[in-house]
């Protein structure tokens, strides 16, 4: 097997005196469907922020595609193939839905407008292409987050709670999209609170609690793990 696509070693991040991540080690293989779970405040989004370059890690290394990327600005990481959606949607509100996709298309993948239309069709926003993105519903905004990440043609797509607040039908829709993307060879990291979705989607899951990995394994081993149960249920 080739080198892992993403290799995070001994990654630490502090906010003042608060340790958000404490020597975290994660490896994600090429083409893998990888789940990241943990209670609120456990460091999932911080980990993703460090990987995507939104935050600078204090210690440790992040290797992507065999090269060290910690220290690089976020836009360069995106150009190397890491794209993400945001937990709280961050649309380019003055632009139409289509234009939102044109930003990564122009700056990263140098694709054509048709590709943006293709992505919108896949994700079910085709009829909203010309709508200004501040007119979208919450569900549509979450889809736009994914669509914009897809437009960067990433090797690794990080979906940060793309399904929060969606109905079970819509969760199914988004899952299907992510499965299809994965089938085309894109590695996917999914952060999610909707257990059914993560369990169904992920081949491997890591559970974070208070900035440390408390369990790693297949969905079955994760649910069976007493520490995970304790972290989630407080039992």
């Amino acid at each position, binding site marked *: 097997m080739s080198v892992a696509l993403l290799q995070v070693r001994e990654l630490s991040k502090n906010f003042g005196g608060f340790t958000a991540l404490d020597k975290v080690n994660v490896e994600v293989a090429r083409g893998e469907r990888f789940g990241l779970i943990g209670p609120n405040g456990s460091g999932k989004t911080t980990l993703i922020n460090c990987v995507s370059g939104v935050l600078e890690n204090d210690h440790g290394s992040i290797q992507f595609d065999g090269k060290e990327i910690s220290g690089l600005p976020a836009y360069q990481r*995106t150009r190397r193939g890491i794209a993400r959606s945001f937990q709280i949607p*961050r649309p*380019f*509100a*003055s632009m139409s839905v289509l234009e939102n996709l044109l*930003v*990564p298309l*122009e700056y990263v993948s140098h694709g054509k407008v048709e590709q943006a239309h293709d992505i919108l069709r896949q994700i079910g926003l085709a009829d909203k292409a010309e709508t200004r993105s501040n007119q979208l519903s919450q569900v549509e905004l979450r889809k736009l987050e994914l669509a914009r990440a897809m437009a960067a043609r990433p090797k690794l797509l990080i979906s940060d709670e793309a399904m929060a607040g969606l109905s079970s039908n819509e969760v199914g829709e988004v899952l299907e999209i992510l499965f299809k993307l994965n089938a085309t060879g894109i590695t996917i990291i999914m952060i999610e609170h909707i257990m059914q979705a993560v369990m169904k989607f992920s081949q491997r899951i890591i559970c974070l609690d208070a900035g440390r990995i408390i369990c790693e394994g297949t969905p079955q081993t994760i649910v069976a793990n007493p520490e995970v149960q304790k972290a989630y249920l407080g039992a």
Partner: protein
Amino acid sequence: MTRFLVGAIAVLALAASMPFVFQNEYFFFAGYVVLQLIVMATAWNILGGYAGYVNFGSGAFFAVGAYTAVALYKAFALPLGLQILAGAAASGLLGFGVGLLTLRLRGIFFSIATIAVAIILETVVVNWAYVGGAKGLPTLRPTDTPFFASHTVWLFFVMAVLAVIAVGAARYVETSWIGRGLRAIRDNEVAAECSGVPTLKLKLGAATLSGALMGAAGAPYAQYLSFIEPTSAFSLTHAVNALAMPIIGGMGHWIGPVIGAVLLGSVQQIVTVTISSEINVLVVGVMLVVFVVAAPEGIIGLFRKFFPARKR
């Protein structure tokens, strides 16, 4: 592009033909101010309108252009064209430097930093005896102005050229990939960065260009007034005008600052002549409040609202 080029040439031809229409030199004296406002408003809009970084220190960039020109004129008697280039270079450099130091700050912090820069630079100039310090420096106008009836008419034409260059530059920025990147920064900087937009580079580029254009607008200032002193060169009025005009005209489109500057600049000139020069600041203030409350997307926004079919 060609349509814009034709328009630009037409505007310049119109400016050049004005001496045949108007004999009264005051027209050119007032027209110069309106054209200068177009350059300032357009320059401000590149950083403030497109990227959403509000510069309150426009007066500093204007004054650095003016004082660079004065210093070089006094030292080497440089011709006006070179003074303008040097003024633009100095203010562009200032834009880059200020950007490097402050553009990592977001929103209001950047704006506060620009005010600080203006105050610091004004203090420096007040204490710089070579260019007159606080009491100012009279500057002699060159006596010969070939092809033009008077020096004022010549300066009017020079400023018309600068206005066309500024608007052309702004339009290029707006319609190219740079413009989309700047808009993405304005809407959401983190998302822009994660969508592959090199935010710091683009902001620095915008700050440099914006500063350079303001410096160019300021360079002929001493010749225009035959005098320069720090209070008027660094005046907050420059900053207020530079941001009020794009807001009133509309910040999303290059024509917005032009409309705002022509409208407000003309009203100011008329008010100055007919009522009082003090009132014109009030005019800007009142119109700014009215537009921010009633039409936040400016005159362009109103136009689009009433003629929705017309797309830019």
